[in-house]
Structure formats: C-alpha cells, structure tokens
C-alpha cells in the first residue's frame, strides 16, 4: 500500500469509466434494437481518426476538430442504423440477433480495413495544458482527474436522462416490452435511431477522453469493442447501471494486471477472471436475465 498503488487505482478508475461509456452505448443498442453492435469500437476510432487527421493536415483548432469527430461518428452510426442494418430488422428473435451480430462484424471489418489503410498514422493524443498536483505526497496528473470527473458526469447525465426524461422512459419501456410500448404510442424506429446516435455520441466521448490519458491508435478499434463487450457481459447486458459497475471493476482489475504481469498476459488473466465471475454469476454482477 504505497503511493503508486493509489495512482494505479486512479488509472484503473479512469479506464473503467471510459469502458463504461463504451459499454453503455452497446447495452442501450442491444436492449432496444436487439443488435449487438460489434462495430462500436470502430466508431470510437472514427472519432479519434477524424480529429487527428483534421489536426495534422489542416491545423483545425482542437475543439472544432473534436466536434467534427463526434459529428462524423454520429453520422456513421446513422448510416449503420439506416442502411447497413436494414435487412436485420426484417427478422425476429434469435435470427435477428445472429444476423445483427454478423452484419456489424462485417461492418467493423470494413471500417477497420478502410481506416488502417487510409490513415495509418492518425494517432490522437490530446495534451491538456494543466499542471500536475502534489496531493499528500503524490504527484497526481490533473488531466487524469479531469477526465475521470468528465466521464463520470456524462454517465450520471445518461443515467438521469434514462431515469427521468420522457425520452429515457420511452427507451426503457421499449427495452422491457416492445409490443407494450408500441401500443401506448412509442415509435420504435425513432427511438432506435436516437439510441444509435446516443451510443455513437457516448463512444466518441470515450475516444476523446481516452486520448487525453493515452494515445488512441487507428487499429485499436477491435480491442475497445471486445473490452466493451466483456463489460456488457459482466454487467448483465440489459442494465446500464450494471455496465457502469462492471466497467469500473474491469478497468481497475485490468490496470492492476497490466502493472503486475504485463500488457499481453493481462488479457489472458482478465479473461480467466471474467470466466470465473460468469460461472458464479452467469447473468452478470447485477443479476438480470438476458
């Protein structure tokens, strides 16, 4: 229990919040549209790559580049929902889930190939001009604290939106019972689009926040997808609250594993940890059936 322990814990919490942002979008989309979006991590990369390209090539100011990145990401997710996933919605039940999984996998492969061949050097790193703080003998990077607070604020906002606003209630009702929601006059099509846009917005925020604490490479999309999916599975795939908890757990565990046994083996250990967790609680740590 020394100084670096606290710093690793902070690292882990920030990473966990980022994972929660990714997984919250996945959960919402899966709950409402019945599509497990395997292209979610690539959406994150679209945002960072767009921003990085704008910054590197035509010197756009940083905030503008980030806004452009978010907009491009949201536009791609609208394209995904309206064009790519069109055949999926004609199916029902397990067939729909399977085809949705497959088509988004194909879409993510397509995006991955396109991104790494066209912009192989579009790494995004944002250096916030804030000093490091000395706090009880520890050197804490302020940027990290800011990112942590920012992602927590976004997550709280999402939670409040789902809990209290009319749109949030409509989304929750569609997730629970599509037919019932339709009868009381909630449009599935409209909220499906909204949820996809919301998911893309959250994931692009996650990308931006990630690029403050680390560099986001154009090929790292699949990694974020898988981590996000693992968070979803651990959190119970229908519960946003569960994904937030699971994101924190996985973020902290993963960071400590990286510190103690190295990056490559950390994945192996993380997967074993998750397997064990799922054998004890097969429906996630919050325990909702899916």
């Amino acid at each position: 229990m020394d100084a670096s322990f606290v710093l690793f814990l902070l690292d882990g919490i920030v990473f966990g919040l980022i994972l929660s942002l990714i997984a919250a979008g996945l959960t919402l989309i899966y709950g409402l549209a019945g599509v497990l979006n395997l292209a979610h991590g690539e959406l994150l990369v679209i945002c960072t790559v767009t921003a990085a390209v704008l910054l590197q090539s035509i010197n756009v100011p940083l905030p503008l580049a980030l806004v452009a990145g978010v907009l491009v990401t949201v536009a791609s997710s609208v394209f995904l929902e309206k064009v790519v996933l069109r055949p999926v919605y004609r199916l029902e039940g397990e067939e729909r889930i399977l085809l949705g999984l497959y088509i988004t996998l194909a879409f993510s492969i397509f995006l991955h190939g396109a991104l790494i061949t066209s912009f192989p050097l579009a790494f995004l790193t944002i250096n916030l001009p804030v000093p490091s703080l000395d706090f009880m003998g520890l050197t804490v990077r302020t940027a990290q604290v800011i990112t942590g607070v920012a992602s927590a604020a976004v997550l709280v906002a999402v939670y409040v939106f789902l809990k209290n606003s009319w749109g949030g209630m409509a989304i929750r009702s569609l997730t629970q019972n599509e037919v019932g929601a339709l009868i009381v006059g909630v449009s599935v099509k409209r909220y499906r689009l909204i949820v996809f846009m919301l998911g893309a917005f959250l994931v692009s925020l996650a990308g931006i926040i990630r690029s403050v604490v680390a560099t986001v490479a154009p090929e790292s999309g699949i990694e974020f997808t898988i981590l996000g999916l693992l968070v979803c599975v651990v959190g119970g795939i229908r519960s946003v609250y569960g994904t937030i908890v699971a994101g924190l757990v996985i973020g902290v565990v993963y960071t400590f594993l990286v510190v103690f046994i190295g990056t490559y083996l950390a994945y192996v250990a993380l997967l074993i940890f998750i397997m064990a967790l799922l054998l004890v609680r097969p429906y996630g740590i919050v325990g909702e059936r899916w």
Partner: protein
Amino acid sequence: MVKTRLIALIVLVAVYAVIPLLFLNTPYVVFILAQMAFFTIFAYGFNFLFGFSRQLFLCIGAFTGIGAYITGISLRDGLMGPVEAVLLSTAAVAAVGWVVSFLSVRRKLVVIFTGIFTLAITLVFNNLVIGLANVTGGETGFRIRGISLGPLDALPYNLRYYYVAIATVLAITVISYYLLFHTRTGYAYRCIMDDEISSELVGINVARVKTLTALLSSAVLGFSGAQYALFSQLIAPSYFAFASVDLPVQIIVILGGRASLLGPYIGSAIIAVVNEALKFLGPLTQVLYGLTLMLLLAFFRNGIVDFVRRKLFPWFF
C-alpha cells in the same frame, strides 16, 4: 439417393485429384490450390460449429493457431516426432473447443455470448503468442524444417500437402455424410438445425450433441492447423490472425451455404480465384472482404448450395 451421392463423391475425388496435375509446371498455382484445400478444412470445422449446431465460434484462427504452434514448437525443440506432435495438437485443440462449448452450452448461454467469448479467445491467443516471445518467436514467428511424408515425397512440395489436405477434407465429408444421414446423432443434428426447443422436447440431448460437435470440429481444426504449419514451415501470428483465417472462412461458409456438406468446397474455390484476381489491391482486400460479407449477409444469406437447390435444380434434390 445414396447412389447419386456416391457418384457425386467419385466425381469430386476425380476432379480434385486431376486439377493440380494440369498445373504441374507452375508451382504457384499448386500452392494456391493447397491453400484452398486447407481453407476448405477450416471452413468445414466452422460449418459444423456454426451451420449445424449453431455455436458461433469466432476463434477458428486461434484454434488452428494453437494446433500449429504446438506442432511447430515440439518439432523445433525436438520434443517429439511429427506424428506425436500432430496428435497432441489435435487432442489439445479438441480439449479447448470442448471446454468452450461445455461452458457456453451448460450455462445455457445464448449464441451471442459464445460469439463474444470466442472473440475474446482470439484476442487472448494473439496476445499470448506475442507476449511469450521467447517461446513463440513473437511477431516474426519461427521456422521449422520440412518433414518426410513417406511415399508422397516423390511429388513436388506443394502437391504433397495439397493431396494431404484434400484427402483429409474428403474423408471428413464422407464421415460426416455417414454420421448425418445414417446415425441417430445425425437425425438429432437435423432436428437441432430446424428447431432447438422442439428437439429438446422430443428427448434429444441438445447439450450433448453440441459439445460433441465442438469436440470433433475442434479436433479437425487442430489437426488441420498442425498440417498447415508443416506445409507453410513458417509459423507466425499473422498467419492465424482473425483477418487471415476467420474472415475468409466465414465468407466461404456463408457464400457456399451454411449447414451443407458441399458448401465449403464451392465457397473456398470461389474465394481462392477471387483472392488471386484481387491480389493487386494489397491491404485493401480487407475492406473488400468486409463489404462482401455485408452484402452477402444482406442479400445472399442462404448461400450458393441453397440457391441451386431451390432455384435451379429443385428436381434433383
């Protein structure tokens, strides 16, 4: 019925035996054919897992890779002879596949869970191979020396492995045909393909059939992965990456037709030709693969075999 299928099989064997002989002067074509044969086996493994028993295993590359690395490492370090190494790879991959399937089937997890889980296995395999660089050679991999295949040694190098792979896949086809249409398990299979819950209700042990399939398919994947390692002689992570094994295999299975015995042959032949024709695109091939897979899923989900069966020759089947 049996007679027509027997004739079809003999024609298949004859065609596959003769084709490479036409290209004896161009070893490159034979090399492509050998690779095609190996991908047919991989596709067979995936077809059985996904097509027949609805278990979405997105770790075909990892499974073949495990087989290849076990064989490669034991041959490089002289731990055992080639036969034992191949057998060990087969057994090891079969065990891994069985465990994965057991976990997902016994816990009653839906198809997406298996998908996520196996995708994570792919990631873990890649990280493990790169992370344990002192054993596996890391990113660049390692080389092994070629081994003797007995009487086949008289043939040119690529042709040897072409025949090994083709013999394997034809044997698998015959065995699975027999299993599917002449045994109780085969009937169970065809029931599960139609409706899982109803088959459970009539007393079929769905979990047993699924785990058994995973065991056998993974054994096939481990065996063919080991053979593939012997064939390529270079074992590197990029050979068994998601993009270089799983992706083509999925296109082959969906293009050829899920849950059909002939599908992988047709799919892999088409993919081999298309792949060569588009070689000039270089790294853009992946973009094209993604696009193809998307279009296939949207408009041609049932594959060529089903198309032919329904539209062109309904009288034959």
